[in-house]
């Protein structure tokens, strides 16, 4: 008797999921998810991300095919601190991905990391800027 079982991993969605799991499993330790605010005004999309313990050398920001990625690692715990006696957070890798609906002008993106907060200014491409339409009587 043969059982025709549809293997769940055969579906593209499952495959993508397992690939993601595989990729994440290769990282040592947890993958954190920093808090972000995303706002927009007439000219730009602005992203703020809380990244305490992250220096510019350990931060990567990318924009590819309309997907904004923020990833990196926090500064490893310094041995000079001593032996941990109580812990609510730990160091490790982090990642966030966002799909931007606006077309961005990549040549004018500005990224600033200050006091553990990343500010990204993503200027909208000229033709995607919202325009006020003057209505005259």
């Amino acid at each position, binding site marked *: 008797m043969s059982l025709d079982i549809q293997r769940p991993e055969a579906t593209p969605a499952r495959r993508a999921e397992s690939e993601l799991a595989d990729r994440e499993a290769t990282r040592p330790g947890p993958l*954190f998810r920093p808090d972000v*605010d995303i706002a927009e005004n007439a000219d730009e999309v602005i992203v703020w991300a809380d990244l305490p313990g992250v220096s510019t050398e350990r931060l990567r920001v990318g924009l590819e095919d309309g997907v904004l990625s923020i990833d990196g690692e926090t500064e490893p715990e310094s041995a000079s601190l001593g032996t941990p006696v109580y812990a609510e957070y730990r160091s490790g890798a982090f990642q966030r991905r966002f799909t931007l609906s606006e077309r961005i002008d990549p040549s004018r993106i500005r990224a600033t990391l200050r006091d*553990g907060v990343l500010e990204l200014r993503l200027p909208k491409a000229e033709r995607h800027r919202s325009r006020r339409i003057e209505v005259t009587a």
Partner: protein
Amino acid sequence: MNWLELPSPFVRPGHAGPWDALERLRREVDDLFSRAAPRVAPGGAGVLPAINLYENAEGLVLTAELPGMKLEELELSLDGQRLTLGGERRIAQPEGERTSFHRRERRPGKFRRTIELPREVDAEKIQASYRDGVLTVRLPRAASTAPRRIEVTSG
């Protein structure tokens, strides 16, 4: 840092509307999971900055995740073995015309947290520094509790 495993360290002042109620529920569920997670201490706080505490030969070291603040905006006080950390976090707002938010996960507001230290420290020698959004407070042992080296001489 406020990550997958840990709830956000910042409190949001006041709640309004059904979405806030949902958000609060989500945070509570997150809190429950973070409590269940290994290596993360219970009471790992939800609404307050996440802290770590270390011990070394000089005394204790406390670190706290406080992104986007200034050392001058933080208040530290010591009462016996109770260390209190307080301050107010402000977050940037979009400027210009026709602004709107797509996501608001970062939480501004006042916070105040008291930590019971496991040993006596010397209030006069406390040193605080702030770098990359992390506060580090060095709390040297009180002289009375410092281990004394006992010289052993052969006679």
